[in-house]
Protein backbone atom coordinates (compact mmCIF):
# COMPACT_ATOMS: atom_id res chain seq x y z
CA UNK A 1 0.00 0.00 0.00
CA UNK A 2 1.20 3.50 -0.68
CA UNK A 3 1.19 6.40 1.70
CA UNK A 4 0.24 9.93 0.83
CA UNK A 5 0.18 13.13 2.84
CA UNK A 6 -1.71 15.97 1.17
CA UNK A 7 -1.21 19.54 2.37
CA UNK A 8 -0.85 18.39 5.92
CA UNK A 9 -0.63 20.97 8.66
CA UNK A 10 -0.22 20.14 12.32
CA UNK A 11 -0.33 22.50 15.28
CA UNK A 12 -0.13 21.84 18.99
CA UNK A 13 -1.61 24.00 21.69
CA UNK A 14 1.12 25.27 23.95
CA UNK A 15 0.50 27.71 26.81
CA UNK A 16 -2.68 28.90 25.15
CA UNK A 17 -1.12 29.58 21.75
CA UNK A 18 -0.88 27.23 18.78
CA UNK A 19 2.56 26.10 17.73
CA UNK A 20 2.82 25.00 14.14
CA UNK A 21 4.84 21.80 13.87
CA UNK A 22 4.21 20.82 10.27
CA UNK A 23 3.43 23.19 7.43
CA UNK A 24 2.06 22.11 4.08
CA UNK A 25 3.56 18.63 3.96
CA UNK A 26 3.05 16.81 0.68
CA UNK A 27 4.67 13.43 0.80
CA UNK A 28 4.29 10.08 -0.91
CA UNK A 29 5.76 6.68 -0.29
CA UNK A 30 5.10 4.24 -3.10
CA UNK A 31 4.19 0.63 -2.40
CA UNK A 32 7.35 -1.26 -1.42
CA UNK A 33 9.43 1.90 -1.43
CA UNK A 34 12.01 2.73 1.24
CA UNK A 35 11.78 6.41 2.12
CA UNK A 36 13.78 8.29 4.75
CA UNK A 37 12.87 11.56 6.41
CA UNK A 38 15.89 13.47 7.58
CA UNK A 39 15.95 16.70 9.50
CA UNK A 40 17.19 18.42 12.64
CA UNK A 41 15.67 17.54 16.01
CA UNK A 42 12.33 19.18 16.62
CA UNK A 43 11.50 19.47 12.92
CA UNK A 44 8.34 17.41 13.27
CA UNK A 45 9.53 14.29 11.48
CA UNK A 46 8.32 12.05 14.30
CA UNK A 47 4.94 13.77 14.04
CA UNK A 48 4.74 12.60 10.42
CA UNK A 49 5.27 9.01 11.63
CA UNK A 50 2.60 9.48 14.31
CA UNK A 51 0.14 10.84 11.75
CA UNK A 52 0.62 7.84 9.46
CA UNK A 53 0.47 5.45 12.44
CA UNK A 54 -2.84 7.05 13.40
CA UNK A 55 -1.57 8.08 16.83
CA UNK A 56 -2.14 11.75 15.98
CA UNK A 57 -4.42 13.57 13.58
CA UNK A 58 -3.58 16.40 11.21
CA UNK A 59 -4.91 19.88 11.99
CA UNK A 60 -5.72 20.14 8.31
CA UNK A 61 -4.95 18.16 5.19
CA UNK A 62 -5.21 14.48 4.47
CA UNK A 63 -3.24 11.42 5.50
CA UNK A 64 -4.04 8.58 3.11
CA UNK A 65 -2.90 5.00 3.21
CA UNK A 66 -3.87 2.91 0.21
CA UNK A 67 -6.07 5.82 -0.83
CA UNK A 68 -8.07 5.81 2.39
CA UNK A 69 -7.85 8.38 5.17
CA UNK A 70 -6.18 7.23 8.38
CA UNK A 71 -8.59 7.38 11.31
CA UNK A 72 -6.60 5.63 14.02
CA UNK A 73 -3.90 3.05 14.70
CA UNK A 74 -4.08 -0.22 12.82
CA UNK A 75 -1.87 -3.32 12.95
CA UNK A 76 -1.28 -2.99 9.20
CA UNK A 77 0.86 0.05 10.07
CA UNK A 78 3.38 -0.83 12.74
CA UNK A 79 5.99 1.38 14.36
CA UNK A 80 9.46 0.88 15.78
CA UNK A 81 10.22 3.66 18.26
CA UNK A 82 13.60 5.02 19.29
CA UNK A 83 13.24 3.53 22.77
CA UNK A 84 12.24 0.01 21.83
CA UNK A 85 9.09 0.38 23.99
CA UNK A 86 9.04 -3.34 24.72
CA UNK A 87 6.62 -4.66 27.32
CA UNK A 88 8.91 -5.37 30.28
CA UNK A 89 6.57 -7.99 31.73
CA UNK A 90 6.71 -10.15 28.61
CA UNK A 91 9.61 -12.30 27.44
CA UNK A 92 11.15 -11.67 24.02
CA UNK A 93 8.80 -14.28 22.59
CA UNK A 94 5.83 -12.77 24.45
CA UNK A 95 6.63 -9.34 23.03
CA UNK A 96 6.79 -10.63 19.46
CA UNK A 97 3.58 -12.59 19.99
CA UNK A 98 1.78 -9.59 21.48
CA UNK A 99 0.15 -8.19 18.34
CA UNK A 100 -0.72 -11.67 17.12
CA UNK A 101 -2.38 -12.41 20.43
CA UNK A 102 -4.38 -9.19 20.18
CA UNK A 103 -5.37 -10.23 16.66
CA UNK A 104 -6.72 -13.46 18.17
CA UNK A 105 -4.40 -15.91 16.41
CA UNK A 106 -4.33 -19.42 17.93
CA UNK A 107 -1.36 -20.16 20.15
CA UNK A 108 0.50 -22.51 17.80
CA UNK A 109 0.19 -20.19 14.83
CA UNK A 110 1.38 -17.15 16.69
CA UNK A 111 4.26 -19.01 18.31
CA UNK A 112 5.44 -20.30 14.94
CA UNK A 113 5.12 -16.84 13.39
CA UNK A 114 6.95 -15.18 16.31
CA UNK A 115 9.78 -17.71 16.10
CA UNK A 116 10.08 -17.09 12.37
CA UNK A 117 10.56 -13.35 12.89
CA UNK A 118 12.89 -13.86 15.83
CA UNK A 119 15.07 -16.00 13.57
CA UNK A 120 15.00 -13.20 11.04
CA UNK A 121 16.49 -10.78 13.58
CA UNK A 122 18.89 -13.45 14.90
CA UNK A 123 17.36 -13.71 18.36
CA UNK A 124 16.36 -17.39 18.35
CA UNK A 125 18.60 -18.02 21.36
CA UNK A 126 17.02 -15.27 23.42
CA UNK A 127 13.33 -16.05 23.10
CA UNK A 128 12.91 -16.61 26.84
CA UNK A 129 14.96 -13.59 27.95
CA UNK A 130 13.24 -10.50 29.34
CA UNK A 131 13.79 -6.97 28.01
CA UNK A 132 15.77 -5.87 31.07
CA UNK A 133 18.36 -8.53 30.24
CA UNK A 134 18.95 -7.27 26.69
CA UNK A 135 21.33 -4.69 25.23
CA UNK A 136 19.97 -1.67 23.36
CA UNK A 137 20.66 -3.29 19.99
CA UNK A 138 18.92 -6.52 20.98
CA UNK A 139 15.92 -4.58 22.24
CA UNK A 140 15.60 -2.90 18.85
CA UNK A 141 15.84 -6.30 17.15
CA UNK A 142 12.92 -7.46 19.29
CA UNK A 143 10.99 -4.28 18.47
CA UNK A 144 11.59 -4.87 14.76
CA UNK A 145 10.52 -8.52 14.99
CA UNK A 146 7.46 -7.51 17.01
CA UNK A 147 6.42 -4.93 14.43
CA UNK A 148 7.14 -7.20 11.44
CA UNK A 149 5.38 -10.24 12.91
CA UNK A 150 2.11 -8.45 12.17
CA UNK A 151 3.19 -8.45 8.51
CA UNK A 152 2.37 -4.76 8.11
CA UNK A 153 1.81 -3.15 4.76
CA UNK A 154 3.46 0.00 6.10
CA UNK A 155 6.48 -0.25 8.35
CA UNK A 156 7.30 2.95 10.22
CA UNK A 157 10.59 3.48 12.02
CA UNK A 158 11.12 6.54 14.22
CA UNK A 159 14.87 7.03 14.76
CA UNK A 160 15.18 3.33 15.61
CA UNK A 161 18.97 3.24 15.73
CA UNK A 162 19.69 6.71 17.12
CA UNK A 163 20.53 5.49 20.62
CA UNK A 164 22.83 2.68 19.45
CA UNK A 165 26.60 2.68 19.02
CA UNK A 166 27.96 3.09 15.49
CA UNK A 167 28.82 -0.59 14.96
CA UNK A 168 25.49 -1.94 16.15
CA UNK A 169 23.74 0.69 14.06
CA UNK A 170 25.61 -0.39 10.91
CA UNK A 171 24.77 -4.06 11.50
CA UNK A 172 21.09 -3.32 12.09
CA UNK A 173 20.89 -1.06 9.04
CA UNK A 174 22.14 -3.92 6.86
CA UNK A 175 19.75 -6.38 8.46
CA UNK A 176 16.85 -4.01 7.98
CA UNK A 177 17.68 -3.79 4.28
CA UNK A 178 17.88 -7.59 4.03
CA UNK A 179 14.48 -7.89 5.69
CA UNK A 180 13.03 -5.20 3.44
CA UNK A 181 14.26 -7.00 0.33
CA UNK A 182 12.61 -10.21 1.57
CA UNK A 183 9.12 -8.92 2.34
CA UNK A 184 9.18 -5.51 0.61
CA UNK A 185 6.97 -3.63 3.03
CA UNK A 186 6.55 0.08 2.39
CA UNK A 187 9.04 1.71 4.75
CA UNK A 188 9.13 5.21 6.15
CA UNK A 189 12.26 5.68 8.22
CA UNK A 190 12.89 8.81 10.27
CA UNK A 191 16.43 9.78 11.19
CA UNK A 192 18.57 12.82 11.91
CA UNK A 193 21.58 10.98 10.54
CA UNK A 194 22.22 12.05 6.94
CA UNK A 195 24.55 9.15 6.22
CA UNK A 196 21.99 6.67 7.49
CA UNK A 197 19.25 8.19 5.32
CA UNK A 198 21.31 8.14 2.11
CA UNK A 199 22.64 4.66 2.83
CA UNK A 200 19.18 3.17 3.24
CA UNK A 201 16.56 5.00 1.23
CA UNK A 202 15.26 5.03 -2.32
CA UNK A 203 14.31 8.64 -1.68
CA UNK A 204 15.16 11.06 1.10
CA UNK A 205 12.86 13.87 2.19
CA UNK A 206 14.82 16.69 3.75
CA UNK A 207 12.72 18.39 6.41
CA UNK A 208 13.46 21.85 7.74
CA UNK A 209 12.28 22.95 11.14
CA UNK A 210 9.90 25.28 12.96
CA UNK A 211 7.54 24.73 11.29
CA UNK A 212 8.54 21.48 9.61
CA UNK A 213 8.51 21.85 5.87
CA UNK A 214 9.80 19.73 3.05
CA UNK A 215 12.96 21.45 1.91
CA UNK A 216 14.09 18.98 -0.72
CA UNK A 217 13.57 15.45 -2.04
CA UNK A 218 16.62 13.48 -3.05
CA UNK A 219 16.29 10.29 -5.08
CA UNK A 220 19.24 8.01 -4.41
CA UNK A 221 19.99 6.15 -7.63
CA UNK A 222 22.58 3.83 -6.19
CA UNK A 223 22.22 0.06 -6.29
CA UNK A 224 22.33 -1.90 -3.05
CA UNK A 225 24.46 -3.08 -1.36
CA UNK A 226 25.76 0.46 -1.20
CA UNK A 227 29.31 1.35 -0.43
CA UNK A 228 29.83 4.04 2.18
CA UNK A 229 32.43 5.79 -0.03
CA UNK A 230 30.24 5.80 -3.13
CA UNK A 231 30.76 9.24 -4.72
CA UNK A 232 27.06 9.64 -5.53
CA UNK A 233 26.13 9.00 -1.90
CA UNK A 234 28.82 11.39 -0.71
CA UNK A 235 27.62 14.10 -3.06
CA UNK A 236 24.08 13.53 -1.90
CA UNK A 237 25.04 13.70 1.77
CA UNK A 238 27.01 16.82 1.03
CA UNK A 239 24.02 18.46 -0.55
CA UNK A 240 21.68 17.53 2.31
CA UNK A 241 24.17 18.69 4.90
CA UNK A 242 24.39 21.96 3.02
CA UNK A 243 20.63 22.34 3.19
CA UNK A 244 20.43 21.32 6.83
CA UNK A 245 23.44 23.31 7.90
CA UNK A 246 21.46 26.53 7.91
CA UNK A 247 18.62 24.65 9.60
CA UNK A 248 20.72 23.48 12.48
CA UNK A 249 22.06 26.96 12.97
CA UNK A 250 18.50 28.25 12.92
CA UNK A 251 17.38 25.76 15.59
CA UNK A 252 20.31 26.51 17.83
CA UNK A 253 19.91 30.24 17.36
CA UNK A 254 16.34 29.99 18.51
CA UNK A 255 17.28 27.80 21.44
CA UNK A 256 20.38 29.63 22.56
CA UNK A 257 19.50 33.11 21.33
CA UNK A 258 22.85 33.69 19.66
CA UNK A 259 24.56 33.06 16.37
CA UNK A 260 26.20 29.67 16.12
CA UNK A 261 28.29 28.74 13.14
CA UNK A 262 28.92 25.27 11.80
CA UNK A 263 31.90 25.19 9.48
CA UNK A 264 31.39 21.47 8.70
CA UNK A 265 28.00 22.09 7.21
CA UNK A 266 29.10 24.79 4.81
CA UNK A 267 28.69 24.20 1.13
CA UNK A 268 32.40 24.68 0.59
CA UNK A 269 33.49 21.90 2.95
CA UNK A 270 34.97 18.79 1.31
CA UNK A 271 32.84 15.63 1.34
CA UNK A 272 35.38 13.85 3.58
CA UNK A 273 34.56 16.24 6.37
CA UNK A 274 30.85 16.05 5.82
CA UNK A 275 30.83 12.27 5.84
CA UNK A 276 31.91 12.01 9.44
CA UNK A 277 29.01 14.10 10.58
CA UNK A 278 25.80 12.77 11.98
CA UNK A 279 23.44 15.63 12.05
Amino acid at each position, binding site marked *: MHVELRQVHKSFAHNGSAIEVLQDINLTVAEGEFVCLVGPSGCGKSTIINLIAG*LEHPTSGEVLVGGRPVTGPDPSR*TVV*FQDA*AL*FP*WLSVLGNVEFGLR*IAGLPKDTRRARAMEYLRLVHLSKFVHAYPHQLSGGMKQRVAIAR*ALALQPAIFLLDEPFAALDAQTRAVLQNELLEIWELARPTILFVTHNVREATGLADRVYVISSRPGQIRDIQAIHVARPRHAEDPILLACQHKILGLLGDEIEKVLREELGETVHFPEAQHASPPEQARGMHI
Partner: protein
Amino acid sequence: MVLVPRRAAFLKPVLALVLLGGLWELTARLIPAWPGPGHVIGLLGGNLLKPEFQSALLGSVRRMVIGYLLVMAVGIGGGLLLGRVPLVDQVLGSFAVALHAIPGAAWVPLSIVWFGMTERAVIFTILLGAAGILIVDTDTGIREVPPLISRAARTMGATGVKYFWFVVVPAAIPKIVSGLRLAWAFGWRALMAGELLTSVSGLGQQLSAVAKTGQLDQLLALMLLIAVIGVAVDGLIFKRLEHIVRVRWGLA
Protein backbone atom coordinates in the same frame (compact mmCIF):
# COMPACT_ATOMS: atom_id res chain seq x y z
CA MET B 1 34.05 -1.92 45.01
CA VAL B 2 30.92 -3.92 44.35
CA LEU B 3 31.66 -6.55 46.99
CA VAL B 4 32.21 -4.22 49.91
CA PRO B 5 28.78 -2.52 49.98
CA ARG B 6 27.13 -5.89 49.37
CA ARG B 7 28.80 -7.46 52.35
CA ALA B 8 28.09 -4.33 54.37
CA ALA B 9 24.45 -4.50 53.35
CA PHE B 10 24.26 -8.00 54.74
CA LEU B 11 26.18 -7.13 57.92
CA LYS B 12 24.34 -3.97 58.83
CA PRO B 13 21.06 -5.55 60.03
CA VAL B 14 23.01 -8.19 61.97
CA LEU B 15 25.11 -5.48 63.55
CA ALA B 16 21.99 -3.49 64.42
CA LEU B 17 20.41 -6.57 65.98
CA VAL B 18 23.50 -7.32 68.08
CA LEU B 19 23.66 -3.70 69.20
CA LEU B 20 19.99 -3.65 70.12
CA GLY B 21 20.26 -6.97 71.97
CA GLY B 22 23.33 -5.72 73.81
CA LEU B 23 21.57 -2.54 74.86
CA TRP B 24 18.55 -4.53 75.99
CA GLU B 25 20.77 -6.87 78.02
CA LEU B 26 22.61 -3.91 79.57
CA THR B 27 19.42 -2.12 80.63
CA ALA B 28 18.02 -5.42 81.97
CA ARG B 29 21.07 -5.76 84.24
CA LEU B 30 20.70 -2.20 85.51
CA ILE B 31 16.93 -2.31 86.12
CA PRO B 32 15.83 -5.30 88.21
CA ALA B 33 12.15 -5.33 87.05
CA TRP B 34 13.11 -5.23 83.34
CA PRO B 35 13.52 -8.76 81.88
CA GLY B 36 16.56 -9.43 79.64
CA PRO B 37 16.59 -10.78 76.08
CA GLY B 38 17.72 -14.26 77.05
CA HIS B 39 14.85 -14.70 79.47
CA VAL B 40 12.26 -13.31 77.06
CA ILE B 41 13.43 -15.44 74.14
CA GLY B 42 13.42 -18.50 76.36
CA LEU B 43 9.90 -17.70 77.47
CA LEU B 44 8.82 -17.29 73.86
CA GLY B 45 10.33 -20.68 72.98
CA GLY B 46 8.45 -22.25 75.88
CA ASN B 47 5.21 -20.58 74.84
CA LEU B 48 5.49 -21.94 71.32
CA LEU B 49 5.43 -25.44 72.74
CA LYS B 50 2.20 -24.89 74.68
CA PRO B 51 -0.95 -26.11 72.82
CA GLU B 52 -2.99 -23.18 74.14
CA PHE B 53 -0.49 -20.66 72.77
CA GLN B 54 -0.20 -22.56 69.49
CA SER B 55 -3.94 -22.38 68.97
CA ALA B 56 -3.90 -18.63 69.68
CA LEU B 57 -1.08 -18.17 67.15
CA LEU B 58 -2.82 -20.32 64.55
CA GLY B 59 -6.04 -18.36 65.12
CA SER B 60 -4.21 -15.11 64.39
CA VAL B 61 -2.58 -16.58 61.30
CA ARG B 62 -5.90 -17.92 60.03
CA ARG B 63 -7.64 -14.55 60.46
CA MET B 64 -4.73 -12.79 58.82
CA VAL B 65 -4.80 -15.14 55.81
CA ILE B 66 -8.59 -14.82 55.36
CA GLY B 67 -8.46 -11.07 55.94
CA TYR B 68 -5.57 -10.58 53.54
CA LEU B 69 -7.24 -12.60 50.79
CA LEU B 70 -10.29 -10.37 51.17
CA VAL B 71 -8.05 -7.30 51.12
CA MET B 72 -6.49 -8.50 47.87
CA ALA B 73 -9.87 -9.13 46.25
CA VAL B 74 -11.44 -5.85 47.38
CA GLY B 75 -8.25 -3.78 46.99
CA ILE B 76 -7.20 -4.93 43.52
CA GLY B 77 -10.77 -5.35 42.29
CA GLY B 78 -11.81 -1.96 43.64
CA GLY B 79 -8.67 -0.25 42.33
CA LEU B 80 -9.16 -1.68 38.82
CA LEU B 81 -12.81 -0.64 38.83
CA LEU B 82 -11.94 2.85 40.04
CA GLY B 83 -9.25 3.30 37.42
CA ARG B 84 -11.28 1.81 34.61
CA VAL B 85 -14.78 3.22 35.12
CA PRO B 86 -14.87 7.02 35.46
CA LEU B 87 -18.32 6.95 37.08
CA VAL B 88 -17.14 4.60 39.84
CA ASP B 89 -14.16 6.89 40.36
CA GLN B 90 -16.34 9.97 40.65
CA VAL B 91 -18.70 8.32 43.12
CA LEU B 92 -16.32 6.18 45.18
CA GLY B 93 -12.89 7.69 44.53
CA SER B 94 -12.91 10.02 47.52
CA PHE B 95 -14.42 7.24 49.60
CA ALA B 96 -11.38 5.06 48.91
CA VAL B 97 -9.05 7.88 49.92
CA ALA B 98 -11.05 8.40 53.12
CA LEU B 99 -10.91 4.66 53.82
CA HIS B 100 -7.17 4.83 53.38
CA ALA B 101 -6.95 7.75 55.84
CA ILE B 102 -8.61 5.92 58.75
CA PRO B 103 -6.19 3.81 60.84
CA GLY B 104 -7.10 0.12 61.19
CA ALA B 105 -7.64 0.36 64.97
CA ALA B 106 -10.30 3.02 64.46
CA TRP B 107 -12.45 0.44 62.69
CA VAL B 108 -12.60 -1.93 65.65
CA PRO B 109 -15.52 -0.29 67.48
CA LEU B 110 -17.66 -0.28 64.33
CA SER B 111 -16.68 -3.88 63.60
CA ILE B 112 -17.76 -4.87 67.11
CA VAL B 113 -21.07 -3.04 66.74
CA TRP B 114 -21.74 -4.90 63.50
CA PHE B 115 -20.29 -8.34 64.19
CA GLY B 116 -20.03 -8.55 68.00
CA MET B 117 -16.91 -9.84 69.76
CA THR B 118 -16.31 -12.37 67.00
CA GLU B 119 -13.66 -13.50 64.58
CA ARG B 120 -15.64 -11.81 61.80
CA ALA B 121 -15.21 -8.46 63.51
CA VAL B 122 -11.43 -8.98 63.48
CA ILE B 123 -11.39 -9.95 59.80
CA PHE B 124 -13.58 -6.96 58.97
CA THR B 125 -11.08 -4.73 60.78
CA ILE B 126 -8.23 -6.14 58.67
CA LEU B 127 -10.24 -5.60 55.51
CA LEU B 128 -11.07 -1.98 56.23
CA GLY B 129 -7.67 -1.23 57.69
CA ALA B 130 -5.73 -2.48 54.68
CA ALA B 131 -7.95 -2.38 51.59
CA GLY B 132 -7.77 1.43 51.22
CA ILE B 133 -4.06 1.60 50.44
CA LEU B 134 -4.33 -1.24 47.92
CA ILE B 135 -7.30 0.39 46.18
CA VAL B 136 -5.43 3.69 45.94
CA ASP B 137 -2.18 2.09 44.72
CA THR B 138 -3.90 -0.14 42.15
CA ASP B 139 -5.87 2.84 40.89
CA THR B 140 -2.72 4.96 40.62
CA GLY B 141 -0.89 2.11 38.89
CA ILE B 142 -3.41 1.67 36.12
CA ARG B 143 -3.56 5.42 35.50
CA GLU B 144 0.20 5.63 35.06
CA VAL B 145 0.79 3.47 32.01
CA PRO B 146 4.02 4.78 30.43
CA PRO B 147 2.92 6.76 27.32
CA LEU B 148 5.38 5.01 25.02
CA ILE B 149 4.14 1.57 26.10
CA SER B 150 0.59 2.73 25.48
CA ARG B 151 1.45 4.05 22.01
CA ALA B 152 3.34 0.90 21.03
CA ALA B 153 0.39 -1.25 22.16
CA ARG B 154 -2.09 0.84 20.20
CA THR B 155 -0.09 0.61 16.96
CA MET B 156 -0.31 -3.18 17.32
CA GLY B 157 -4.08 -3.06 17.46
CA ALA B 158 -4.67 -3.17 21.23
CA THR B 159 -7.93 -1.43 22.18
CA GLY B 160 -10.71 -1.69 24.74
CA VAL B 161 -10.81 -4.71 27.02
CA LYS B 162 -7.73 -6.33 25.46
CA TYR B 163 -5.77 -3.14 25.91
CA PHE B 164 -6.87 -3.05 29.56
CA TRP B 165 -5.95 -6.65 30.42
CA PHE B 166 -2.85 -7.06 28.25
CA VAL B 167 -1.32 -3.62 28.76
CA VAL B 168 -2.83 -1.48 31.53
CA VAL B 169 -3.00 -4.16 34.22
CA PRO B 170 0.47 -5.64 33.67
CA ALA B 171 1.93 -2.12 33.47
CA ALA B 172 0.38 -1.43 36.90
CA ILE B 173 1.87 -4.48 38.59
CA PRO B 174 4.85 -2.72 40.25
CA LYS B 175 2.46 -0.29 41.91
CA ILE B 176 0.04 -3.06 42.84
CA VAL B 177 2.86 -5.05 44.44
CA SER B 178 3.98 -2.08 46.51
CA GLY B 179 0.33 -1.68 47.55
CA LEU B 180 0.24 -5.36 48.55
CA ARG B 181 3.31 -4.85 50.70
CA LEU B 182 1.82 -1.86 52.50
CA ALA B 183 -1.53 -3.62 52.83
CA TRP B 184 0.20 -6.52 54.60
CA ALA B 185 1.77 -4.13 57.11
CA PHE B 186 -1.51 -2.27 57.68
CA GLY B 187 -3.44 -5.52 57.92
CA TRP B 188 -1.08 -6.97 60.49
CA ARG B 189 -1.51 -3.89 62.70
CA ALA B 190 -5.30 -4.02 62.24
CA LEU B 191 -5.31 -7.70 63.23
CA MET B 192 -3.56 -6.91 66.53
CA ALA B 193 -5.90 -4.01 67.25
CA GLY B 194 -8.91 -6.17 66.45
CA GLU B 195 -7.81 -9.05 68.65
CA LEU B 196 -6.83 -6.77 71.52
CA LEU B 197 -10.30 -5.28 71.70
CA THR B 198 -12.52 -8.23 70.78
CA SER B 199 -10.68 -10.81 72.94
CA VAL B 200 -11.05 -13.43 70.22
CA SER B 201 -8.33 -15.97 70.99
CA GLY B 202 -5.13 -14.81 69.29
CA LEU B 203 -1.84 -12.99 69.77
CA GLY B 204 -3.58 -9.67 70.37
CA GLN B 205 -5.89 -11.16 72.97
CA GLN B 206 -2.88 -12.86 74.68
CA LEU B 207 -1.23 -9.46 74.76
CA SER B 208 -4.21 -7.96 76.53
CA ALA B 209 -4.39 -10.93 78.95
CA VAL B 210 -0.76 -10.75 80.08
CA ALA B 211 -0.94 -6.96 80.34
CA LYS B 212 -3.89 -7.25 82.74
CA THR B 213 -1.95 -9.62 85.01
CA GLY B 214 1.20 -7.47 84.76
CA GLN B 215 3.43 -10.17 83.24
CA LEU B 216 5.99 -7.85 81.68
CA ASP B 217 8.25 -10.67 80.48
CA GLN B 218 5.35 -12.45 78.72
CA LEU B 219 4.25 -9.17 77.23
CA LEU B 220 7.72 -8.59 75.80
CA ALA B 221 7.86 -12.16 74.48
CA LEU B 222 4.59 -11.63 72.62
CA MET B 223 5.64 -8.29 71.20
CA LEU B 224 8.90 -9.83 70.05
CA LEU B 225 6.97 -12.57 68.23
CA ILE B 226 4.62 -10.04 66.62
CA ALA B 227 7.58 -8.01 65.40
CA VAL B 228 9.43 -11.08 64.11
CA ILE B 229 6.41 -12.33 62.14
CA GLY B 230 5.80 -8.84 60.73
CA VAL B 231 9.40 -8.39 59.64
CA ALA B 232 9.78 -11.96 58.37
CA VAL B 233 6.71 -11.91 56.13
CA ASP B 234 7.67 -8.50 54.78
CA GLY B 235 11.30 -9.43 54.18
CA LEU B 236 10.86 -12.99 52.90
CA ILE B 237 7.79 -12.45 50.73
CA PHE B 238 6.93 -8.86 49.94
CA LYS B 239 10.35 -7.25 49.76
CA ARG B 240 11.57 -10.02 47.48
CA LEU B 241 8.49 -9.89 45.30
CA GLU B 242 8.83 -6.13 45.02
CA HIS B 243 12.50 -6.46 44.07
CA ILE B 244 11.85 -9.11 41.41
CA VAL B 245 9.08 -7.01 39.89
CA ARG B 246 11.08 -3.79 39.96
CA VAL B 247 14.02 -5.47 38.22
CA ARG B 248 11.87 -7.03 35.51
CA TRP B 249 9.87 -3.86 34.90
CA GLY B 250 13.16 -2.04 34.53
CA LEU B 251 12.60 0.20 37.56
CA ALA B 252 15.54 -0.97 39.70
